[in-house]
């Protein structure tokens, strides 16, 4: 085997920083977007960033049962699916009543 010209390594911190960047983008999306569906996209992105972090810990960190991180990630995906279904249904219901899903126009609790 020829000698490797470059020896690249991937550390835990690289993956964690990726998760942090994705989380920050998701946070920015969910706080700044006007459309409720855009806000939801930010929330889904944040949940995904958390999953990246969980799987990175599962892969790299000392643990008696390292696969537990992946189990937890599957639970996060389940809860995210439930949340997306209910939240998008709510958006459609609000649209039926108000003809808009802009969060700065949905400002009454009762109509």
């Amino acid at each position: 085997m020829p000698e490797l010209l470059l020896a690249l390594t991937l550390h835990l911190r690289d993956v964690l920083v990726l998760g942090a960047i994705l989380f920050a983008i998701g946070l920015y999306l969910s706080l700044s977007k006007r459309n409720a569906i855009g806000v939801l996209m930010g929330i889904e992105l944040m949940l995904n960033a958390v999953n990246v972090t969980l799987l990175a810990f599962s892969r790299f960190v000392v643990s008696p049962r390292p696969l537990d991180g992946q189990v937890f990630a599957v639970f996060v995906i389940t809860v995210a699916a439930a949340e997306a279904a209910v939240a998008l249904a709510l958006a459609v219901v609000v649209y039926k009543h108000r003809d808009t899903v802009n969060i700065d126009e949905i400002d009454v609790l009762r109509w």
Partner: protein
Amino acid sequence: MIADNGIVIAFWVLAVTTIGCALMVAAVRELIQAVLFLALTFVGIAGIYIVLSADFVAVVQVLIYAGAIAVLMTFAVMLTPAADRKNSETAFQGPAAILAGLVLAIVVFVIIDTDWRIADRGAFPATAASLGEAFLKPYVVPFEVASVLLMTAMIGAIVLTKEDEGEDA
């Protein structure tokens, strides 16, 4: 620490693609394009999962996020035709950007500063079988609770969007 050149290159390519697509979600001015870029982001994250040797979770990610949730969001955009389709921001854009930047700075500082207990372990072998065992042995109660939660959410979504019969809505 992963020392395989191919995997490391794959990680960096996937990381740049994923972050780029996530930024495009914020940048594009058409809501439906934002949904499509979000689907691309989800696929990129599935690739990251494979790099982290989580093959089962990666498949679940493609099925549920890139498949179901992206389609669900497309449907939600399509079902609100008269709504504003511009992917615009509220007045909180500036504060939101500052807050997100601060959160990122703090988290990255903690990541660099912490002395993580790194295990010297290789990639996991195929994880589907051991995950299934974990779900049905130590995690059987959370597993059942999750299924009840999913069913409740589905029923809730149907009840919410059901047309009202006989009464004026």
